[in-house]
């Protein structure tokens, strides 16, 4: 680990000021950042701990008229255990439970989970200077790409590792952000971008921008909405998603039981692209018709229609198709 300076401000303005210094980086739970510091894939001059901030709303979960509001410094453990999340946002509770293991969930934060860096073994290797680290080439493109993207076009084919992001995008969540580059509320889906020749960044936030809160809209008719988060892993715990699916359907009023027609649909995939991947064609295939076996098959086919497998990851297409079907079947109204 390279040496750095360290500050732990209590006031938000002070943190934002410090973060504008060259080489400054925000530190929340640190469970991802410390692995990067040790591998020297990040070498900040100044770490600004946000754990001392006294800003209201930064910690914990609460609700108002329109939103369930989740502070960015809420830990993953607090999130999975919170009654509001368990009762009103089961997709999110399910996603939080699948992250890593208790020791990381007790420390890792919601904001940090959304902003975490990719797990690509070439990026993470201390001696490999891949494209994402400012080099010329993505070594995964022709190399070991079992865990890499099947969707999206980018010079970097690493996948976004977050479990919370697909779940929160399926919930139409917004991020409340403060900073010099981005200020205000933005749809969580708009937070993410694929790295390109213009910028290697994976989010639209600058280094001095901070997520303060996540706002999840409350459904007007909660009994008509059903959702689920499913995650395929290499083992039953402690694994990043090989593929994950966050699915949320609302069913139209006046149509009941197996004949219930799907109103709105959200289908967001994790582990398959450089950002959380909305399967919009699959969503469109679901809208307006009952959730029959044929509709589920059509949606699963639409979800993988644009996939572009590489030498070692075509299995993800079959896995995605199967996981989408399993998720949708679990949402069939009783």
């Amino acid at each position, binding site marked *: *680990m*390279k*040496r*750095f*300076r*360290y*500050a*732990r*401000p*209590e*006031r938000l*303005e*002070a943190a934002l*000021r*410090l973060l*504008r*210094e*060259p*080489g400054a980086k925000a*530190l929340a739970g*640190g*469970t991802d950042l*410390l*692995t990067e*510091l*040790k591998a020297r*894939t*990040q*070498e*900040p*001059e*100044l*770490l600004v*701990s946000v*754990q001392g901030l006294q800003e209201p709303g930064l910690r914990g979960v609460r609700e108002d008229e329109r939103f369930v509001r989740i502070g960015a410094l809420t830990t993953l*453990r607090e999130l999975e255990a919170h009654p509001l999340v368990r009762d009103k946002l089961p997709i999110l509770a399910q996603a939080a439970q699948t992250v*890593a*293991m*208790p*020791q*990381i969930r*007790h*420390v890792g934060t919601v904001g940090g989970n959304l902003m975490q860096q990719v797990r690509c073994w070439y990026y993470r290797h201390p001696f490999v200077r891949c494209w994402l*680290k*400012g080099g010329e080439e993505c070594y995964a493109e022709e190399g070991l790409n079992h865990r890499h993207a099947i969707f999206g076009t980018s010079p970097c084919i690493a996948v976004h590792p977050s479990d919370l992001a697909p779940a929160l995008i399926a919930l139409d969540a917004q991020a409340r952000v403060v900073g010099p580059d981005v200020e205000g509320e933005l749809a969580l889906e708009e937070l993410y971008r694929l790295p390109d020749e213009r910028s290697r960044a994976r989010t639209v936030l600058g280094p001095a921008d901070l997520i303060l809160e996540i706002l999840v809209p409350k459904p007007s008719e909660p009994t008509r909405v059903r959702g689920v988060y499913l995650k395929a892993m290499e083992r039953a*715990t*402690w694994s990043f998603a090989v593929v994950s699916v966050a699915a949320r359907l609302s069913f139209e009023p006046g149509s009941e039981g197996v004949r219930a027609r799907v109103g709105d649909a959200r289908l967001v995939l994790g582990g398959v692209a450089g950002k959380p991947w909305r399967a919009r064609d699959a969503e469109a295939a679901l809208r307006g018709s009952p959730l029959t076996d044929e509709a589920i098959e059509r949606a699963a086919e639409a979800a993988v229609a644009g996939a572009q497998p590489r030498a070692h990851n075509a299995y993800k297409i079959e896995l995605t198709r199967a996981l989408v079907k399993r998720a949708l079947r679990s949402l069939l109204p009783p």
Partner: protein
Amino acid sequence: MAKAVRAEPEPELEVPVPVRGPERGPIKLRVNGEKHELWVEPRRTLLDALRDDLGLTGAKKGCDEGTCGTCTVLLDGKPIYACLRLAIECEGHEITTIEGLAQGGELHPVQRAFIEEDALQCGFCTPGQILSVKALLDENPNPTEEDVRRAVSGNLCRCGAYPHIVRAALRAAKGLAERPGR
């Protein structure tokens, strides 16, 4: 990544925030109920501070990157990986290591249960396993087998003592429940 260039200092903040390091400086830690002042760099991990500065070698250094669990300690009663936490970030918190479990020469009931159920072979992962189980029982005194499995899911045991570890946790829970005055 891009090399940073030190900028001209900006005007002073109303209440200046102390910026510490990169040289060594004092940090205050509370470990097993005792206060310590250490003289370390901000980059010092909690694990290195415990082992090398305080001589508490119960927390082991296995992978040093959050993938094995041998460095598990309790932070305010919750299990964390000491290798993924800066010591300086633990100021104001209470750290418990395996050395802090026995009281007055008497082993903690979880430690006793591990011996009674033969829940270890080489013993390298044991301090972490015991602390994960202790944190579980503090939060949930009557866990199911599944609860135990989830609680120790972040602690690898390459000897494969898992079935005995689960039995030890359930035995400790039973013992604690039957203890008078609890």
